[in-house]
Structures are given as C-alpha cells and as structure tokens.
C-alpha cells in the first residue's frame, strides 16, 4: 500500500469560487522523498494546507489516503495523530505559549492517542535538549514563547525540531528553504536527512532546485494550475532550474 495516495483532488478557498486544485493525482511511497516544484500560484501551498486540514480551504472532490485511510474528513489534530506533519512555510508566533509547554502538549497528545502515558518531565527535557542541540536551537529559544522573536531561519529549524520530536509517517515541507541562508539550509537538510527511513515519506515543496542539492529527492513532480503535469527523477529538477517552468507548463497546456 502506498503511504500517500491522492486521487483526483479538487479544492478551493472556502470563501471564493475559483478552484485551485484541479484533479490532482499523486502517490508517495514509504521511504520516498517526493519533491513538488511549480510556479507561483500553481497550488503548492494549497496542497499542503488541504492535506493538513486548514479550515480556509474546501475540498470539492477526490480523496487523500494516508496508509489507505481517507484523511480529508478528519480534524487537523486527528490527521497529525495519524502521522501527518506539515512544516509551515510561515511558522506562526504564539505569544504567551511557552515553547516547552507547546512541545510537551504535542508529544503528550500523540502519546495519548497511541495509548501511552504522558512523558515524564526529565525524559522530555532530555529528548528536547538532544534534538535541539543537533539543530542548533539554543536554550534561550526553548525558553521563549513559540517562534516569538525567532529569525526566519530559527523558525524553520524550530519546525524541524517539532518534526524530529513527533516522528511523523509523512512530512510535508512547505517551502522550508524560503528565507534560509546556506548554513541554515544545511542544518535543516541534515535534520531531514537524519529522519529518512524506509517507513517514512516526505513531500518537499519548493520553488528552487537548490534545496534538492541537500535533500536528494527520489522523484520530482511538477505542479501547474492545480495538477501534476510531469513526473521524473532528480534530473527533472535540474532541467527546470535551467529552462524555467514556462517550457513544461506550455507543453502541458
């Protein structure tokens, strides 16, 4: 069974009529890193939000099966509990909610769903400190409110920290490279690469080929006007980098 199977998915903004996803088909296998590239407005972020369950979007048709189960009717927290993780393009600042409180709530919610006891505080602190160190996240950042006062790069690293703690089945990285300098990009890519495993899949959404130098994809999909119009190997990303989207998009249209 495929890890993720999206069949003929159509979706729009809840408040507008214009369809953004227009019959999107996509399969991600276990152990696979699938890159999704596409021009502005092609529906990349919409796809990530629709999969994560954001309320502003309305699914008008099709299905998305995670491990064979359609997740589109589930609340966002239930999808997360099933092992879906979205690394946000713009991680949100939550003033007043401490980073550690937030991480602990997320870990414990997952443990409860899996019938486990809540994590003991010393174990939790050890776990967070270990992962944070690998990602260059300081103690000071852990003491602050979630993402408050973090630089763009720090926010992205914080997303990867959450992913590392929650160990999802399927991680969607929505333009995780945007706003990152090369050093931060390497740290983030190392964090992702460390989590690659035969049981886990990644959907890496990006504009640029550069990220894929660090996170090597198994397969590259091109998204345009809400549909996958071309699928290939890593060389497809290089081709796009050299020629731009216009050529491929033109042929598909």
């Amino acid at each position, binding site marked *: 069974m495929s890890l993720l199977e999206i069949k003929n998915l159509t979706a729009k903004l809840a408040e507008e009529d214009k369809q953004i996803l227009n019959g999107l088909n996509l399969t991600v296998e276990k152990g696979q890193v699938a890159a999704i590239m596409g021009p502005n407005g092609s529906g990349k972020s919409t796809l990530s939000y629709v999969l994560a369950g*954001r*309320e502003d979007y309305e699914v008008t048709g099709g299905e998305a099966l995670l491990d064979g189960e359609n997740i589109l009717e589930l609340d*966002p927290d239930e999808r997360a509990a099933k092992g879906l993780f979205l690394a946000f393009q713009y991680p*949100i600042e939550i003033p007043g909610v401490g980073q550690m409180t937030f991480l602990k709530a997320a870990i414990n919610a997952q443990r409860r769903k899996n019938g486990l006891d809540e994590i003991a505080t010393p174990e939790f602190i050890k776990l967070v400190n270990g992962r944070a160190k690998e990602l260059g996240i300081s103690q000071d950042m852990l003491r602050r409110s979630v993402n408050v006062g973090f630089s763009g790069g720090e926010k992205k690293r914080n997303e990867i920290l959450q992913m590392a703690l*929650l160990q999802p089945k399927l991680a969607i990285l929505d333009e995780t490279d945007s706003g990152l300098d090369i050093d931060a990009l390497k740290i983030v890519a190392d964090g992702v690469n460390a989590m690659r495993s035969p049981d886990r899949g990644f959907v890496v959404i990006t504009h640029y080929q550069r990220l894929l130098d660090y996170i090597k994809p198994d397969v590259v999909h091109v998204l345009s006007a809400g549909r996958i119009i071309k699928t290939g190997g890593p060389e497809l990303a290089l081709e796009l980098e050299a020629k731009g989207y216009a050529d491929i998009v033109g042929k598909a249209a």
Partner: protein
Amino acid sequence: MNAITPIRTPAEQALIGAFGALRDTGPAGAALEGLRIDGFSRFEASGLPHRRVEEWKYTDLRAMMREAKPLAGAPDASALLAAKVAVGRLPRVGGSRIVMVDGFHAPDLADGGSLPEGVTVSGLAEAMARRPDVAALLAGQPATRGNTAFALNNAFLTDGLLIEVAPGTEVGHALDLVSITSDGAPRLVTARVVVVVGAGASAGIVETHVGPAGVDYQKNVVMQVVVRDGATFEHGRRQIEGDQALHLSTLEATVGAEAHFDSLTLTTGAAVSRSQLFVRFAGEHSDVTLRGVTMLKGRQHADTALVTDHAVPNCQSRETFKHILDGEAHGVFQGKIIVQPIAQKTDGRMMSQTIMLAEGPSMDNKPELEIFADDVACAHGCTCGELDADLMFYLKARGIPHKEAEALLVEAFAREAIEDFGGGPLAVVEELREAMLASVTEWMRART
C-alpha cells in the same frame, strides 16, 4: 408639582426593614451607628440602582436583586466548625491566614503562624471607639460615597477588620485573607476591611471570597486601602463565590506620594457580580496598576467598574482587564479615568480585551476619559473576538486537540494580565500568579 412616592421593590422593602431591625436590636456604638445612618439615608434616597443610572447601566441591580436576604448574624459554633473545614481545603496563598465568616472576624480560624512583625489586626468597631483617626479611613472618597453598594455596606455595618502595617515595615509574605459565607439558608453578608500601609512600608494581601454552591446568598464587601507615602501595596483577589451568589465588591484605594499599588483580581464565581475599584492619587510620582481576569460561563454576569482619579500631577496608572466568556455569559467593563486640572504629566493607559469561546456571550465595554489637564498622555483600547484561527490551526496541526489548543491560547491570553503582577519584594506574588494561572487552566478543563 406633586411629590413622587417611589415604588419600592420587595428587595428594597426588605432592606429598609432590615435596617430598622438592626437599629432596634443591633450593637450600639455611636461611631458605626453614624455610618450606618448615613449609608441608609443615601440608600433610602436612591433605592437600588437600575439601568437608567449611568454607572449601573449594564448591571441593573434593581432587576437582578429580586429579593434581599436576611442579614447574616455572627456565626455560631457549628457554622465556625463548618467554615474551618471549608477554609482548610483552600491552599494558603501567602503567609498568615486571616478568616472572616459571614463578614465577622473568626480569630480561631487563623492559620499560618502569628502575624508578621509590624502588622496589627483589630476589630473595626473597637478601634473606632478607641481612636479618633479611624472614622476618616471609613468615610470614603467622594466617588465612593455616592455609590449605592458602598452605602448599603455602611447601612449594615456592625464590625469589620482594621489591618495596619507599621511605617517602614517590609512584610515578606502577603496576608491570606479568606472571606467565607456559611452554607445553609441564604443570607446577606456585609464585610468591611480597612487597610493602612504605613509610610515606606511594603505589604500585600490576597483576598479569597468563597461560599457554598447552590445557595443564592448575597455578599457586599468593601475594602478601603490607604497606601501612605513611599509605601508599596500588592493586592490579589480571587472571587470564587458559589454559583448562585450575588457578589458586590468595592475596593477603594488612596495612594500617597511615591507609592506603588498593584492589584490583580480573578473572577470566576457568583451568578451576578460587580467589582468596583475606586483609586485616587493623593500624592505625586506614584503608580497604580489594576489588572483583572474574568472567566464566565453559563448565564453568569460580571461587571468591573473602575474609577481612577488623577487628583495630583506626575502619576502613572495602568489598567489591563481580560474577559474570557463562554455559554451565554455577560461581561461588562467600565473604566473611567479622571485627570484633574492640576494633574499635569499624568500617564494613563487602559486596556480591555475579551475572548469569546462561543456564539452566545456578550460583552459591554465603556471607557470614559475625563481629562481636564492639557499636558497628559492617556490611552485606552479594547478588543473583542474569537481565538485566532491561524494559531488554533498551528496547534492542531501538531496533534493538540481542539479543547487543549483553546486552553493553551486562553492561558496565554490570561497570562498577559497576570505575569508581571507584583514585581515588588513580596515572595508570595509568584505563588499567587501560579495559583491564578492554575485556576485558569482548571476552568478551561472543566468546560464540557
């Protein structure tokens, strides 16, 4: 023109009758009797306030107080025993605990060791008979005197507490003042506490108001505070009355020069409550911070009414009030800042923020700025809305269930009013902050 004979409601008639009975059988003592007569005549002239009285526009007491309960008498032995058990269940927040039962001091229920050095607690009637200076402490500021809840407190005043902190004393732990109403037939409780923080002293009091669930008792409580020059007073207040109670509270503070007054109120209890704060700057270069967190559900009604009077120049006032409303609850915030003509360089800021957890609640906000000086900075703001959908999505996308995500955000919202409370020398303040945050968490958890 013909004289108009006001139509008395049953509650007003009962209050008038109760005053007559108290006059005939109550404790003598010219001092308190003078206050009682003055308070009663003010009440008799005005009656219970209703929606056409501007200060009571959103809390129509005449409609909400259908009947007046019989006056509570001094608790008997079994009431004291029951109170002792109930008070024992409340974790102490602070140092020495002082207990009032049905408005009467219950010295046998004191806990947490003897009073700190420099702190004295006396009976109000006794102190008033003995000392000529006490009457002035009870008289009230002009704005307070014209208030009906205050007038009624005076009308039924038989005793109370005078808490004094000697000049220059630093009291490390706040006093833990528990004011409990007995179970049983509902009664009208009148409680009065006067606090004097001497020059250069620092002290704190945490009041907790508690009573039985399912009993529609009525409580009218007044605390009058004088913060002398150079003194610091930190005041915490937990209104966790029983769910059927009517709770009227008046906090009056007179703040001297170079003094600090910080007050934080948590309101979760009572069916109908009104919390009045009258603060007057009497000396320059002082600062006052008033904060509150009110959490209401079901059909609860709570009104917070502030009057901050900048009567002298160069003082700073900050007001931060947060409402969290669920069910069909009704919250009210009325904040008046008066800047007198001579009060140049006044710096006043007031903020009222509300989170609606459901479609049903309503909130009324009424800021009033009366500025008569021309070199001042005064600002007020008000927000009212649901929890931010983007924040909710982010939390839920990490697997945190809806209710828990709401609780995290509400705690963060409440924390803004709570977290920098105090800041003075009191060790207890952190304990109080934690206790209040825990109450916020507990309240959110108890939502169904």
